[in-house]
């Protein structure tokens, strides 16, 4: 086998590099090398070496969202974070934790529960990492009360494209010193730098919880019930609508708090939702999961809150018009819905539906983003739709990654 000088040079930076295998692809694009740094120092050394060698790099955590966004235009090195794991700090008295980015999100509840605490982030795709959740800004039902990753992330350690390590924020919740780079890299799909450590604010685990659900025939009715719940004094943790293709929809309200308080509020929620509403202490099927499976088309639809009933009915009508079985599920309480279509759906019809959904969400102040789709669909649709401030975004990318080596092409506007 001929000598591989690039591999040698990467290994000189950190030993944790190997030649890529046949599964080491990002969304179908093969890599040449894979490196799995164990700490920020190794990651920095590798990114410095990659910069010197002009290698294109894409980051990979649990791999659960590798088919989100566009495939990288160019790929030499996969920087895998699955060895960059573990809790750096859990200051229970200060309600904060610092976690390495490769840590699986679904491992945290067990770790933090001992102190009666939680990182209030849902993990819609099991197996995803903390860094992946931040990089793609995933969210689930509980965002209604607790906010999303961007709201819970209070400090971040980054490695830039040139290998320089930078920190922003810190370990205290109230902090306005310097720019909030944590927000900048949240949802940036790894195009601005590698996130190696995250500091989060935590919340106490509630003593009691109740899921109050009611089935409805008409999606718009689900939207109206959601509006009634918001207007009441229930302070729900989550307010979800689940409208599978071809079946009745369900509205579910999650209430958390003291045992006595939850009992009283669950009773009030049942009165509000109607006679056939039920209360349970466990979530309904599909809770905090996206309404699609691997290989399907997955969409994110957003709207102003008052537009949620309209969006539910418009989306359903558009799907019927294009004869596509659209499953809708999401947070009616915040104006974020997810939609799934079978992966084998006709690309032309999917494209027409995406156009219709874009028009519907735009009219309601929101957006339609295609998060994931099989290649034939992706070839036919633009994933992101209109983006405000794209020129500024390009300028930010140019400053952080002037050679466009980090996940090139995966993000909005070809960034």
């Amino acid at each position, binding site marked *: 086998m001929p000598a591989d000088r690039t591999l040698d040079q990467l290994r000189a930076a950190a030993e944790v590099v190997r030649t890529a295998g046949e599964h080491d692809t990002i969304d179908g694009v093969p890599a040449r090398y894979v490196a799995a740094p164990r700490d920020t120092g190794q990651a920095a050394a590798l990114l410095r070496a990659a910069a010197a060698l002009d290698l294109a790099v894409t980051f990979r955590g649990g791999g659960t969202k590798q088919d989100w966004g566009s495939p990288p235009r160019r790929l030499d090195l996969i920087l895998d974070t699955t060895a960059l794991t573990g809790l750096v700090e859990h200051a229970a*008295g200060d309600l904060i934790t610092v976690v390495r980015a490769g840590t699986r999100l679904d491992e945290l509840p067990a770790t933090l529960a001992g102190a009666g605490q939680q990182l209030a982030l849902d993990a819609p795709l099991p197996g995803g990492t903390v860094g992946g959740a931040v990089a793609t800004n995933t969210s689930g039902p509980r965002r209604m009360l607790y906010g999303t990753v961007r709201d819970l992330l209070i400090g971040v350690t980054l490695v830039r494209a*040139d290998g320089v390590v930078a920190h922003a924020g810190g370990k*205290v919740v109230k902090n*306005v*010193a310097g720019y909030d780079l944590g927000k900048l890299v949240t949802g940036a799909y790894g195009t601005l730098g590698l996130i190696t450590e995250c500091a989060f604010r935590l919340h106490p685990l509630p003593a009691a919880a109740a899921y109050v659900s009611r089935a409805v025939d008409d999606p718009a009715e689900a939207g109206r019930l959601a509006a009634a719940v918001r207007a009441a004094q229930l302070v729900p943790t989550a307010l979800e609508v689940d409208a599978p293709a071809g079946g009745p929809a369900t509205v579910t309200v999650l209430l958390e*708090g*003291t045992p006595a308080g939850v009992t009283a509020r669950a009773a009030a929620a049942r009165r509000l939702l109607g006679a056939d509403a039920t209360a349970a202490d466990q979530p309904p099927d599909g809770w905090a999961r996206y309404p699609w499976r691997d290989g399907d088309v997955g969409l994110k639809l957003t709207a102003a809150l008052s537009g949620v009933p309209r969006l539910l009915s418009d989306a359903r009508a558009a799907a019927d018009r294009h004869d596509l079985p659209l499953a809708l599920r999401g947070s009616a309480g915040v104006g974020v819905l997810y939609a799934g279509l079978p992966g084998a759906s006709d690309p032309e019809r999917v494209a027409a539906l995406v156009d219709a959904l874009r028009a519907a969400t735009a009219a309601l102040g929101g957006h339609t983003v295609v998060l994931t789709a099989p290649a034939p669909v992706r070839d036919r649709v633009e994933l992101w739709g209109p983006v405000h*401030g794209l020129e500024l975004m390009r300028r930010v990318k140019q400053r952080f990654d002037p050679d466009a080596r980090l996940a090139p092409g995966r993000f909005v506007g070809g960034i």
Partner: protein
Amino acid sequence: MSTTTTDLDALAAALRAAIGADRVITDRQELRTYECDGLAQYKVIPALVALPADAEQCAAVVRACVAAGTPFVARGSGTGLSGGALPRADGVLVVTSQMRDILEIAPDDERAVVQPGVINLAVTRAATPHGYYYAPDPSSQQICSIGGNVAENSGGAHCLKYGFTTNHVLGVELVTPDGDRVRLGGRAPDAPGYDLLGAFVGSEGTLGIATEVTVRLTRLPESVRTLLAAFSTTDQAGAATSAIIAAGVVPAAVEMMDALAIEAAEAAVHCGYPPGAGAVLIVELDGPEPEVAAQFAQVESLCRDNRAFEIRIAADDAERALFWKGRKSAFAAVGRISPDYIVQDGVIPRTALPEVLRRIGELSAERGIRVANVFHAGDGNLHPLVLFDAAVDGETVRAEEVSGAILDLCITHGGSITGEHGVGMDKAKYMPRMFTDDDLDTMQLLRCAFDPDGLANPGKVFPTPRLCGEVPGRRKGAHPAQEAGLAEVF
């Protein structure tokens, strides 16, 4: 670069042509009105003041500044306490206080759309009839503007539970430092692309000027209950705070005042706090009635367990207001017991409170400078009021030393140099104590993307300006190009 009188005359003429003569101030006496923001130890008379009426005028002012190569500083009500809106003698002060329309209150969307000059409390007043309010409430909420709140990411007493300005701003329209109008975020959450909105909030006017702000409205709580607990020592009050948090209660607010702060408040507003208290805690819970009832009993007993010698429970809104009156007037009140004072704004992890307060006491004794402590105990945001008399030889210097030592104490304990007032001019020199050169260089990458010419509020936030064309890296001394007079820095 020095701006000459001729340049300024030309710029003033350009501004008058763009926004009208009555919106441009050039008279020296009138300019003096704007010489400082809330922090009186810094005073600079701006070269010009522009008072745009709307976003397009604001953009026109910025474009005129860009064309003239003149720096500009945005200012709302001027209540920041870090010199963030301190004018530049060679620059234009863009005052947004005449852009003060509430454009929309949309309770069904839980949103309000306002111009930047709108007063914080005015948003709540407009939303209250609909059953909503605007949660971020800096102590200056009666006079501070939303634009300023966005610039500083300012907080307040209720941040612990409800979050900060950044958690409640859903969209802005801004004028970028090159004069473009850009909309970020808006009525719906999670706009695609980089979270430039999140980066803009708290950027202290260095990334542009907000000309329209969409904020989240929060449902008015069904129930609010407030207690005031008196303790002999701040240690006991701190222990009670920790016990409340450890019990899983997230109060709407936990505020603490020490003996000197109480003395000042009593002298000013006669709030009638329990005599002999070494510390008082104000704990407020809000939310659904059954939750508040259950947790309030718990809080009361935790205060007693931690040796509160008196607990008062507000029977109605009037009593609640009285509890808060002492706290909210504390900053102004120290003016009655000291000719001069510095308001510090450091943050520490809450668990470090007893140790840090003890050390502040020692610093105070060592330097002969009184320090009154009034702060947001729930989130560790300290506001030590460092009292001094500028007329006494050496006191100003000693007060500044104590003030700086307190910030060092915050950093040593893993905290921050500012929790809500911003870095501004006042704390730029402390940034390298909290962040490395690499951290600050990385922040500058963002700055340069927005403001390559460094015209937006230069000299604030960052201690060591850097040329935007420069490759990031460690620097010593002045940049060679700057030294040679070849390039301007921000």
